[in-house]
């Protein structure tokens, strides 16, 4: 029997992501939380304000990455637990890490697709200019990975009902909107607010989007990248350990 290499496992993760794309991308919950929510929140903030809409492009991008990337795993995993298709992954020849990576990848691709549409909208409708494509793409990649991993971490709550994952996740996601410089710039926050903003991965996503679209990063690009990488590793680590725990207890 041929040995299963890391490359083989990566390919199988990709197979899971592709299948999730077919099945879950057009479900009501990912569309609601991944598309409607960020655009509606953006409009409710932008309409009627005396701010050039092109300046608000980073806000739209950061929100779409945040909401879209984190909305696929919390739907697909509980649903697959309920219909027992999640057992298929666990009994297939690939590690739990590869299974969860495949699930994370599905969120990454969803987040990138929606945010790419948002970028196109910003460029063609708002006249936004990309000044640093590398930072913008790096930021989109890191943020989608981090937020998708966050969704997978919350999906390790042992339930078969997506609502029971979405609800506690929104307890975290919604407050994050107010401490991450989306509505009040970080520089205008009190010291404690700035400290909270530093701890939010959404702040660093917004910083990178600002920088890529002609603005500046409050905390600096290296710090933004480091914080997003650390959060991604933390979310993945917690997600894996919680899923392992489920396998031991269920």
């Amino acid at each position: 029997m041929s040995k299963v290499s890391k490359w083989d496992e990566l390919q199988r993760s990709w197979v899971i992501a592709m299948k999730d794309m077919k099945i879950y991308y057009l479900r009501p919950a990912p569309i609601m939380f991944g598309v409607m929510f960020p655009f509606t929140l953006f409009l409710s903030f932008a309409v009627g304000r005396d701010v050039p809409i092109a300046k608000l492009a980073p806000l739209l991008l950061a929100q779409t990455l945040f909401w879209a990337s984190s909305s696929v795993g919390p739907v697909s995993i509980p649903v697959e637990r309920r219909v027992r298709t999640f057992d298929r992954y666990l009994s297939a020849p690939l590690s739990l890490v590869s299974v969860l990576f495949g699930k994370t990848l599905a969120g990454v691709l969803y987040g990138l697709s929606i945010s790419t549409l948002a970028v196109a909208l910003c460029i063609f409708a708002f006249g936004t200019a990309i000044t640093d494509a590398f930072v913008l793409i790096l930021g989109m990649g890191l943020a989608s990975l981090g937020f998708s991993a966050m969704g997978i971490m919350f999906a390790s709550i042992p339930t078969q009902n997506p609502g029971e994952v979405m609800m506690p996740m929104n307890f975290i996601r919604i407050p994050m909107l107010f401490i991450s410089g989306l509505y009040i710039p970080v520089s205008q926050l009190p010291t404690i607010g700035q400290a909270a903003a530093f701890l939010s991965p959404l702040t660093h996503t917004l910083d990178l989007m600002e920088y890529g679209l002609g603005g500046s990063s409050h905390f600096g690009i290296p710090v933004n990248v480091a914080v997003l990488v650390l959060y991604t590793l933390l979310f993945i680590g917690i997600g894996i350990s919680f899923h392992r725990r489920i396998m031991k207890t269920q």
Partner: protein
Amino acid sequence: MTYAVETVGLTKYYDSFLAVDHISFQVRKGEIFGFLGPNGAGKTTTIRMLTGVSTPTDGTASIMGYDIVRQSVEAKALMGIVPDVSNVYDELSAWDNLVFTGELYGMPKRRLQEKAEALLRRFGLYDRRGEKVVGFSRGMKRKVCIAMALVNDSEVLFLDEPTSGLDVESVREIRQMVRALNEEGLTIFLTTHNLEEANQMCDRIAIINRGKIAAIDTPERLRQIARNVQSVEVAFNETPGDLVDELQRLAAVTSVEKRGDKYRIFTNEPPLVLREIWAYAEKRSLTPISISTLGPSFEDVFVKLTGKEMEKELVREGKAATQNAGRGGER
């Protein structure tokens, strides 16, 4: 010797509840091994541990010599699983379900397409390969599920209650398929609470009760355990209300049960009871319309080993099958 499946002291706790209690057994290559027990006995928990879905609390299990915890990827590559519910992707077509499973097992594209086509033809689903599974009947979904378990050229097939809740025709088809697959060399691990299914299909049977193995042997040897339970079954042209009590009073009768229009009379001396029944029938002017002597049934063995009455479960299963047959396959 490498066994197809081997467990040593396999144990599973759910918090403080002991679901599987240090069970050890071996399944030989090429046999149909039945894992029999009442609901809640630990069958599904055992199969979930053997297939890597659930981590054992203690003990070891191996598939074709590969430890399911330490060499899980190698072990899983050799097995196919059909769980107690058909866990197919309703949103995908039958073809896409098989292709997805094959890709998950890393099969080369050409081989996968050949295998998927062969399996769908074998299961009579090829003409409907492009349809979403959501529109399939329960029996058809079961077939897709079995085909998915076979697509990766597995050597050991785990079947968890494969015929539960299906109509009579589907049950027969699936049993025939399982026998044919076994004849082709596949080792089958079959869990069921259907005694007759286990009796008819399995080379050896393990009986599990309350998480412990009560016995492992061939169906016929297991039947010997209850050899002292013999009976005479008789049906009369009439069924007077006091018949059970009257039959109970005949010589050498230990107990009497009414089963439908028949009476099962338990005894250690069937010839004596037969004479008694004839004499009684003449006295009461009754005509026996059928009469037969019965050895111990598999159910008797089960009751003797587990102390459980299976009749309720069998009745429930019979009702489910009748309902399904009446619906002509549930969709």
